[in-house]
C-alpha cells in the first residue's frame, strides 16, 4: 500500500524546473500535479514500469480485485466528490475488464481518466501478447482517447485528458500508454504541458431572444413542472434551481440521477419521475402545460411512450450538450449552455409568484397514492425492502452517501431514501450496470472519508463484484453493506410476473451465505429476517468500526410500484394493489429458505 505517509515524496522542484523523468514517473508526476491523491488500479506486464515508479509519489493506490471495480471506484469517487476519478490497468485483459466501467461512466457523464498500459510501439498491431486495440474498443464509450507511444507526449495528453473529462458535458477519457513510452525519458515540464482553454461546443446558445422566450413561457404557464436532472449536480446549480422553483412556485420532479439535486423535504419537491416514479409525479408531468427540463435528456425511462408524452406541455430545455436538443422530445425553447449560468441570466427576468392552484391540484393527486404506499403497510412479520430503505433513511438522517446497484432495490431506494443533498445517491442510471454498487461505494468512501457510506445491492448484483470485499479488507475501508436478498434477480422476475406469465426462467438464485462470505474477509455481518432485526442491524453497522454487512432476507416476490410498462404512456401506471396481501402463499424461489421458513 502506498499512502502519502510512507511514500517518498516527489520533489516539488520538478513542478517549477523542467526535469528529465521517465515516462512512468511523468505519468504519476502529472497526476499529482493535477491534484490527484487516489488512484484505483491493478498491475500487469505492460504497466509495470509505471507501477515500479509509483512509490516515489504521494499517491494512494487502491489495489482492486477486478479492473471493472477500478473503473467503478473511480466513477464513484467522481460522483461523490465532483473530482476526476482515476483508474489504472494493464493492457489486454486488464483494459477490456475496464470496458463496462468506462461505458457506465460515459452513459452518466462522469469525469474519469483511465490509464492503460500497452505493448511496446515496436510490436503494436502484431497481436503481441496481451495486445488489444483498447482505443478502438473504447472509441464510442469515451469522450476522447489517446494512444501515446512517446514519453514526451504523456504529460500534455494527460493534462488535456483531465480538462476534457471535466469540461462541458463531462465524461471518461482513456489514455493508452505503450510500455516503451513509460520506459523512455523526456523533459517533464508541467507548466508547458498545460492544455489551452477548453473549446466550448460551438453550438452553445442561450441568447437574449431565447431567454426572453423562455421567460414569457414561464410567465404565462398555469401548470409548470421543473424536470431536475443530473445536470443540476454537474453544474452545481442546486441554488439556482431552487430559486427558480421558489420564485414561481413550480413543483420539481427529479430523474433518478437528479435525486439530491433538489432537497427531498422541500415542499415543492414532487419526487422521482418516470417508470417507477410516484403516480402524482407522472400525472403532473402529463397534465403540465410547461416543462422546464434542467440538465436532463428525456431518457426513455422517464418519458414512457414519446407519442403520448406531455402533449399539452410546451418545453424549455436547458442543457449543455447541443446534441441532446430535440433528440427524443421536440422543444419550444432551447437554452444551450451551463445550467447554472443560464439560470442566473433567466432568473432576474421572472416575476415572483405567491401561490398556485396547480400545486393544490397536485396535492389532491397524492391522497390516493398514500393509501397504496407500501410504507403504510403494517409490520406484519414480513420484511419489505421498502421498509429497509425507510429505516436506513431514518437511521442515517438522510445524510449518508448511498451507492445502489441495479434492480428492484435500486428503485425502492430511490423511492424511500429521501435524498436531501447532492452527491448522496450514487447509482448507475444510463447503463444500469449490476455490480456497480460495491466498488462505487469504495470509491465514494475514499473520496469522502468523513461521510457515512452505504452499499445497497441485490443478491444478484452483489455477486458480480463481491471480490471487492477483499479490497475493503486490505485497504481497511469502512463501508456498510446492505444486501437486499430476495432470492431472485428481482427486477427481471417482476417483468416475468407481469409480462411473461410468471415464467420465472433463470431468475431464482442460490446465493452463498453473505454473512459467512463477509466473515471470510474478516468483515462483520448479520442476517436480518424481521423488521426490528433490520433496525438493530443498521445500528450495529453504524457503530461498528470496520466494514459491516447486513443480509436482509426480504419478501421474495414483492414488486416495485407504480410501474409504467415499457412503451406505455407515462400516466398508464400499474399501481400498487390497495392492500398488498402477504406473499406467503405464493410460489417462491425453490432454491432458497425464506424468512417464514425459519
Amino acid at each position, binding site marked *: 500500500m502506498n499512502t502519502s505517509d510512507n511514500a517518498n515524496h516527489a520533489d516539488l522542484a520538478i513542478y517549477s524546473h523542467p526535469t528529465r523523468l521517465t515516462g512512468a514517473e511523468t505519468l504519476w508526476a502529472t497526476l499529482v500535479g493535477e491534484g490527484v491523491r487516489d488512484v484505483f488500479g491493478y498491475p500487469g506486464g505492460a504497466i509495470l514500469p509505471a507501477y515500479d515508479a509509483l512509490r516515489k509519489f504521494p499517491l494512494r493506490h487502491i489495489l482492486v480485485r477486478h479492473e471493472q471495480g477500478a473503473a467503478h471506484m473511480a466513477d464513484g469517487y467522481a460522483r461523490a466528490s465532483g473530482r476526476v476519478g482515476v483508474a489504472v490497468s494493464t493492457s489486454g485483459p486488464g483494459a477490456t475488464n475496464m470496458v463496462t466501467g468506462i461505458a457506465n461512466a460515459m452513459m452518466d457523464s462522469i469525469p474519469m481518466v483511465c490509464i492503460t498500459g500497452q505493448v511496446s510501439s515496436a510490436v503494436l498491431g502484431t497481436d503481441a501478447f496481451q495486445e488489444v486495440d483498447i*482505443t478502438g474498443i473504447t*472509441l464510442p464509450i469515451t469522450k476522447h482517447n489517446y494512444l501515446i507511444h512517446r514519453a514526451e507526449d504523456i504529460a500534455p495528453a494527460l493534462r488535456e485528458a483531465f480538462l*476534457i473529462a471535466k469540461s462541458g458535458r463531462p465524461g471518461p477519457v482513456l489514455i493508452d500508454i505503450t510500455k516503451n513510452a513509460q520506459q523512455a525519458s523526456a523533459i517533464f515540464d508541467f507548466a508547458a504541458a498545460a*492544455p489551452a482553454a477548453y*473549446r466550448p461546443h460551438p*453550438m452553445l446558445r442561450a441568447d437574449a431572444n431565447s431567454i426572453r422566450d423562455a421567460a414569457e413561457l414561464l410567465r404565462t404557464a398555469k401548470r409548470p413542472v421543473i424536470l431536475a436532472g443530473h445536470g443540476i449536480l454537474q453544474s452545481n446549480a442546486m441554488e439556482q434551481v431552487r430559486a427558480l422553483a421558489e420564485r414561481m412556485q413550480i413543483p420539481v420532479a427529479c430523474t433518478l440521477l437528479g435525486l439530491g439535486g433538489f432537497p427531498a423535504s422541500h415542499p415543492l419537491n414532487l419526487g422521482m419521475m418516470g417508470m417507477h416514479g410516484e403516480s402524482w409525479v407522472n400525472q403532473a408531468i402529463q397534465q403540465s402545460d410547461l416543462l422546464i427540463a434542467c440538465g436532463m435528456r428525456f431518457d426513455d425511462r422517464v418519458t414512457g411512450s414519446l407519442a403520448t408524452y406531455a402533449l399539452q406541455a410546451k418545453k424549455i430545455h436547458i442543457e449543455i450538450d*447541443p446534441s441532446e436538443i430535440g433528440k427524443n422530445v421536440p422543444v419550444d425553447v432551447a437554452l444551450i449552455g451551463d445550467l447554472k449560468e443560464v439560470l442566473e441570466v433567466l432568473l432576474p427576468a421572472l416575476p415572483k409568484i405567491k401561490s398556485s392552484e396547480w400545486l393544490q391540484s397536485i396535492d389532491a393527486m397524492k391522497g390516493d397514492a398514500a393509501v397504496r404506499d407500501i410504507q403504510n403497510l403494517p409490520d406484519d412479520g414480513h420484511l419489505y425492502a421498502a421498509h429497509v430503505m425507510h429505516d436506513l433513511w431514518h437511521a442515517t438522517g438522510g445524510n449518508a452517501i448511498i451507492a445502489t446497484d441495479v434492480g428492484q432495490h435500486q428503485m425502492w431506494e430511490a423511492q424511500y431514501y429521501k435524498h436531501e443533498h447532492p452527491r448522496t445517491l450514487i447509482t448507475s442510471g444510463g447503463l444500469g450496470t449490476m455490480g456497480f454498487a460495491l466498488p462505487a461505494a469504495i470509491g465514494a468512501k475514499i473520496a469522502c472519508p468523513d461521510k457515512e457510506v452505504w452499499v445497497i445491492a441485490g443478491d444478484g448484483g452483489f455477486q458480480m463484484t463481491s471480490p471487492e470485499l477483499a479490497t475493503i479488507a486490505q485497504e481497511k475501508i469502512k463501508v456498510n453493506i446492505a444486501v437486499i436478498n430476495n432470492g431472485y434477480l428481482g427486477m427481471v422476475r417482476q417483468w416475468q410476473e407481469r409480462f411473461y406469465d410468471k415464467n420465472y426462467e433463470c431468475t431464482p438464485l442460490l446465493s452463498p451465505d453473505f454473512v459467512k462470505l463477509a466473515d471470510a474477509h474478516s468483515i462483520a455481518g448479520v442476517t436480518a429476517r424481521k423488521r426490528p432485526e433490520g433496525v438493530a442491524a443498521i445500528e450495529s453497522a453504524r457503530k461498528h468500526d470496520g466494514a459491516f454487512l447486513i443480509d436482509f432476507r426480504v419478501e421474495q416476490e414483492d414488486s416495485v410500484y407504480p410501474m409504467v410498462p415499457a412503451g406505455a404512456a407515462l400516466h398508464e401506471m400499474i399501481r400498487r394493489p390497495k392492500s398488498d396481501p402477504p406473499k406467503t402463499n405464493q410460489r417462491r424461489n425453490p432454491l432458497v429458505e425464506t424468512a417464514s421458513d425459519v
Partner: protein
Amino acid sequence: MLHTFVALVENKPGVLTRVASLFRRLNINITSLTVGESERSGVSRMTIVAEAAVDRAHRIMASLYKLENVLEVDDVGRHSAVVRELAIVKVAAGPKTRAHLFELAKVFHARIVDLAPESLMLEITGGASKIEGLVQVLVESDYQILEMARTGRMAMRRGQHTSRVLDALREVPATSESTLAGKPKHMALGKVATEDHA
C-alpha cells in the same frame, strides 16, 4: 434527404474512424466521404454526404462537434455551394465505336484520358447529376462500362464565406509543432467562440 457536411478536422491518426464511427452509431449510411488536405497544414477537410431525415442535420452537426478532433462543421447543403465530384470511367470501345464516345465526351465536357485498342477512359468532373447523366447515356447506348471510380462529393460555399476556424488560426501564429497539436486549435476556437457566442 441527402445532407452534405464539410468538417475541418485535425489531421491525426484515427480521426477518420471517429467521424465514420459516429455515423455508424447514429445508424446513418454515409453516401460518400472525401478527405484531403485543406489550405492549412495539420487540418484536413472532409466532405460527408449522408442520407438522413431532414431534421437530423442539427444532431449530426452537434455530435460531430463533440469529437475533440473536429474543429468546424458546416451544413453546406443549406447554402449555395459549389459541389463537385470526379469520376473516371473505362468503357469498352474499339476503333469503330470510338467516334461516338468522343462526341459524348464533348457534350458532357468530359476528357478522354486513356486510349487502348479495346477501351478508353473518360474523366468527368461536375455535380452528381452530370456524372450520372453520362453514365446513363453510356448504358442506354449499350456501351459496356468496364470500371468506374468516383471520388464522392467535395463542396465549398460560394462567395465570401470562409471557415471561422481557419480565419482565427491565421491570426494565432502556430506554436512549434507539438504532436498534440491541440494548442493552436483550442486557442483559436476559444477566441471564435467568445466572438460568436458570448
